[in-house]
């Protein structure tokens, strides 16, 4: 495991497992869209790691979406993604501040809520 690993990795991993649970399937059925996340370790647009959250199939894939175009693509920094996922940062605010870039369908982007990310428990 390299030390340059993203904090976001843990969250995506958690989401991946979560999507296999009953509650996760409920979320999947509710949203039923595909989101792509470009997570940058430090600065937006540089060394981005791509994650695809496929809420049609209920999968989290590291890498680009292969079934066509994702419904919406979010680009943001690792740090901001963590804040987003644990509810400390509101996506609308992040967008206003320019901390979050969005590409793709507007209505799909709006359906995204950070609440779909399960919260990590603390040791």
């Amino acid at each position, binding site marked *: 495991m390299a030390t340059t690993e993203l904090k976001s990795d843990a969250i995506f991993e958690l989401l991946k497992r979560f999507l296999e649970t009953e509650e996760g399937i409920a979320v999947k059925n509710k949203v039923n869209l595909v989101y792509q996340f470009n997570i940058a370790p430090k600065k937006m647009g540089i060394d981005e790691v791509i994650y695809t959250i496929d809420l049609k199939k209920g999968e989290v894939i590291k890498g680009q979406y292969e079934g066509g175009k994702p419904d919406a693509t979010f680009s943001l920094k690792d740090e901001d993604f963590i804040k987003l996922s644990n509810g400390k940062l509101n996506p609308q605010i992040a967008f206003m501040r320019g901390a979050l870039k969005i590409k793709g369908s507007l209505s799909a982007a709006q359906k995204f809520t950070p609440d779909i990310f*399960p919260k990590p428990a603390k*040791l």
Partner: protein
Amino acid sequence: MAMRELVTGGAACAVPGSSSSSNPLSALANALTGSSSKTRDRIKEIPTSTTTGTEPPFYQDATAEDRLKALPGADFDHSFSRHPTLQSSEFLRNFRTADQNGFADAWEEIHRSGPPPPPALLDHRLPPPQFQPTLEGPPQRVLSNFLHSFVGSSHGGIPFRPAPLPALGLSEGDKQCIRDRSSIMARHFFADKSEDFINAQVNALLSSLDIDGDVQAKGPFAGRFRELEDYWNESQGAPRPGPPQTDGWVAEFSQHRIEHGDPNAWAHSFEQQHGPNSWASEFEQEQRLVSAADQMRGANISNLAAMEQTRMLAHTLAQNNDPKFQNSKFLQFVSKMSRGELIIDDNQVKPAALSSPGDWATEYQQQYTAGPSWVDEYAGNQASSDFCKQDHKFFLTWFCQRIAALSLDLSNKKKKKLSHGPDQWANEFSTEREQSGPVDDQWVNEFSKLHVNDWADEFGRQVGEGAFGESSADNWADAYDEYLNEQVVAKQKSDAPRGVYVFSDMNPYVGHPNPLKEGQELFRKGLLSESVLALEAEVLKNPDNAEGWRLLGIAHAENDDDQQAIAAMMRAHEADPTNLEVLLALGVSHTNELEQAAALKYLYGWLRHHPKYGTLANPELSDSLYYADVARLFNEAAEMSPEDADVHVVLGVLYNLSREYDKAIASFQRALKLKPQDYSLWNKLGATQANSVQSAEAILAYQQALDLKPNYVRAWANMGISYANQGMYEDSIRYYVRALAMNPKADNAWQYLRISLRYGGESKVFLNGLLMRFRSLLFVPLKATNAHGKMRGARDSCIIASGAVAEEYSGWEVGKSCMDY
């Protein structure tokens, strides 16, 4: 404060900076119901010299004082501003030192157009000078006595009897205010009575006063005198109002007077913002704008365009008849901008208070020369890419959403408004912008790019389609408020960089003869937040006490605050670099914060400094750590002595780091066989299970931890997370609230509670019951939060909680206590 103002609230009752005094009558109610007996005592100590004042013009009407006395407890209202004597005397002093003539003029002007608002001046809020000229003298006293008897009826709980009253000549505005206030107040007085009873009481009161009981257009009144308030707020926002500011106030006032010509202008500007009547004034403004444009002779087209756009925007917005919306800060901002009261200067929104309308042209000339960058950026934006357009569109929708949300979600926002005080969106906005600098310059760019026609179309279309569900609207509606809060929080946080320990202010244990012993004792008893204070006192006394820092770090970790835990443990580590417990704790906390490299470093440090396994460690490794190497070493160590629980614990943490949860669970279980009484181990097991999505098992493990240590905040919070992740939001709320009651500074728990409230909040009955049951619990954290430094998150969350139960008394109560922050 005059009785009328007490009752009607109106503009004077809702002023930022004195948020707690935003409803004097409710404050009075508190005083009456005994919840603030301390304040009562405090108030008695306050010298009255300033309240009687020496400036005759202030107190021409001596009956004002009498009126005050007519209502027992009315004098308490001063207590609800933060430092009444201090503020008011300073205020008065400033006025005395100010240019007397100018001030006198201004005062006379105020005086001629309205009844004397004298004691209101004593609070650091502005009297609404032209507060309904129709009411003078005797009717006020009648009203005051009448309302007094209403308040009195609350003591016995006897039904209130309507009484015939002489015509009081109340204006529509007064009536509305009385109606609103009284129904809120009644819910306070008769908290123990049924809704029907309350309604009966209120109706009796209202019918006597010849006020329609029906609720129509609750909104607009807080905003009636908002311009004046804004001016006031601006001067309040200045470092400290010295004489120059006071002069400025006068200048602003007279300026304002010129701008509007006569007192009727208030009504005029009110209308303009509140409905179809705005046509005339819109037209006027357009004329003015056109003439201004002529004068400008093409000086700065883009600025003018921006203004034109905001004007159109304001117009579009003004056509929405929803009073809630009419009251919104945003509309105020836009309309201000459109009237040139706010200008965008060099990407900063600034109030253009000092320029009279006729000076617009010069203003913009200056601006043109001062801020060419603005123009450049504007031009740059024109050439923006498709991607930007996408952003832009998204922004537009956000914008629409916010407006739709405002229209849709009346009740929720009403509570918010109560807690927010007056509409000073524009002020907040401009100060925010100054704070946040270039980051959100984009906002202005976006704003200037708005194609208003598109925008209006889109808005109409989306509203027509009913595109927004209530919940998503809520969601978006909170966005801006959160944004503001977030910026404040961010500002606070930037003061305290990561890894630096933040001490609580007002620590009662400072000066304690042996705070370490006290802290250990408190920790043993499970009073984590208290022991944190004691231990802080210890490390303040002995900054090199490793044990003090270590225990402090543990207490924070158990209190679910990893940031502080890390900060404390770092200090412990400095004082004693080889302490194994410290190294392990640092490893765990960094793991929780998902900081892998740091976690790995400390866990490896644990191995290196361990007397038994230190030999395994390869000193060359410490520079570039790889997870696999470290894990291998620990496995060796575990083979060396399988009976050492600690090795298994570290292994478990390591496996968490690599997200090999099954192995981690096995390690923790092995360790638990050796140390079954270790509550933190049970929690670690539970957290690992939760993270590998075995929520049911996790809850059992947390339960074990809580059986061993009932005040283990972390386990309570984790429990809440597990329920939330299973979609059992209502259950999760209970656990979050428990955790927060014990540690109101648990930031994560507040965030999670908020999310759960959003989902679990669907059932009003449930929430009401919950808030009723946990009211004392919620108040504890709220009070503690206040004592240990303000936390916006706390305020935010309980506002949301109260919003979710908007109609309910208890929710209001919670919301009200939020206002006190």
